[in-house]
């Protein structure tokens, strides 16, 4: 059993789908942050079988929660202060994600119009389908 020490202040992202932790690491921009990050892959989980965990020592407000919910809304966020969990946050799918993913439809206006934000809208919550706001192409990169 691998042991990773407690963090004093920051967050623990738990119940990440196994293998997705590096995606989240990149989407959150953790590679650009000067803070301690522990990435635990394929940890044993009673519920999920296997899961990934991310531990980050930083201010929780620096996180873009919408991005996190879009990537995997089953993730739980444990907010840590003084080495203790002070809050558990459950994510829900954002209605809209801006500049997180890009539309890959070559016929979409986003492919030529400069400065246009890439916006995806939640079209079907049950099936977790997002569509480009402009061309309505389904996002299939998840």
């Amino acid at each position, binding site marked *: 059993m691998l042991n990773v020490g407690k963090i004093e202040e920051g967050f623990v992202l738990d119940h990440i789908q196994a293998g997705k932790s590096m995606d989240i690491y990149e989407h959150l921009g953790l590679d650009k942050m000067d803070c301690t990050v522990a990435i635990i892959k394929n940890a044993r989980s009673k519920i999920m079988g296997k899961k990934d965990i991310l531990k980050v020592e930083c201010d929780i407000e620096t996180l873009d929660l919408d991005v996190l919910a879009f990537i995997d809304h089953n993730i739980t966020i444990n907010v840590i202060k003084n080495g203790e969990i002070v809050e558990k946050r459950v994510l829900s799918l954002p209605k809209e994600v801006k500049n997180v993913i890009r539309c890959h439809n070559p016929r979409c206006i986003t492919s030529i*119009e*400069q400065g*246009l934000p890439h916006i995806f809208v939640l079209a079907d919550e049950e099936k977790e389908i997002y569509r480009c706001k402009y061309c309505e*192409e389904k996002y299939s990169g998840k």
Partner: protein
Amino acid sequence: MRHLMSPLDFSTEELDRLFDLAARIEADPAHFAHACEGKILATCFYEPSTRTRLSFESAMTRLGGRVIGFSDANSSSAAKGESVSDTIRVISCYADICAMRHPKEGAPMVAASRSLIPVINAGDGGHQHPTQTLTDLMTIRSLHGSLGGYTIGLCGDLKFGRTVHSLINALSRYDDIRFVFISPQELRVPDYVMEMLREKNIPYEETIRLEDVIADLDMLYMTRVQKERFFNEEDYVRLKDFYILDKNKLGLAKEDLIVLHPLPRVNEISVEVDEDPRAAYFKQAQYGVYVRMALILTLLEIEV
């Protein structure tokens, strides 16, 4: 200020009002001949579409307004690399309303988000062509008497044909409609469209041969197999003549069938069918002008 991006932007009640207005225009065009005097329509066509552009120009001219614009990207500032956002800001200073055709999907929506004047989507790539759908609905309502209560067959390219997808979406809001999709396997209606129909409990069937179902239809919507939608010439040549409506096939149909087509036709309807009273596609083009006149008046909030 309102724009028109998709046929679903208007509620069915709003569409009823629009079609009532179009019917008033049809009954008494002279009454509306000066309704848009002093107003300017900009037709910003980044790709050629003579029919749609002329229909808009005819509509504005018949309302007493004037028209400015361009008919392909090479004769506009887009050729110099100007963005849609910048173009519409400038056009907003020159005109009172804009009809935009663009090969990129969502371009009119970008324009609408920056525009100071109403923007009408006059076709954006394979995405939406709402004024064609309004034309189709207006024609059905005028010739059938209502927008519900019939079996409609859609024939030809049901995969890439945006007019077909828009029409199915628009008709799915009306009662007692049954769809029959007639297409080769390669050009079937996309799954998501059929899924939408299943969710709404709207009956539909798929078939390959037009002859097998034509007798059941109250309406037949023919479409062109568009060369530009194919990646290779061979597929196009193999499929383009798959479904041709001729006198023999029409002989199997009901006496009061209504045959529609968004035009231009290539050879999917034989010219011999044109003289048949069931052929309604040229009337459809006429309704396209009335409905665009009604749309211009509605978006400019001009009451006559």
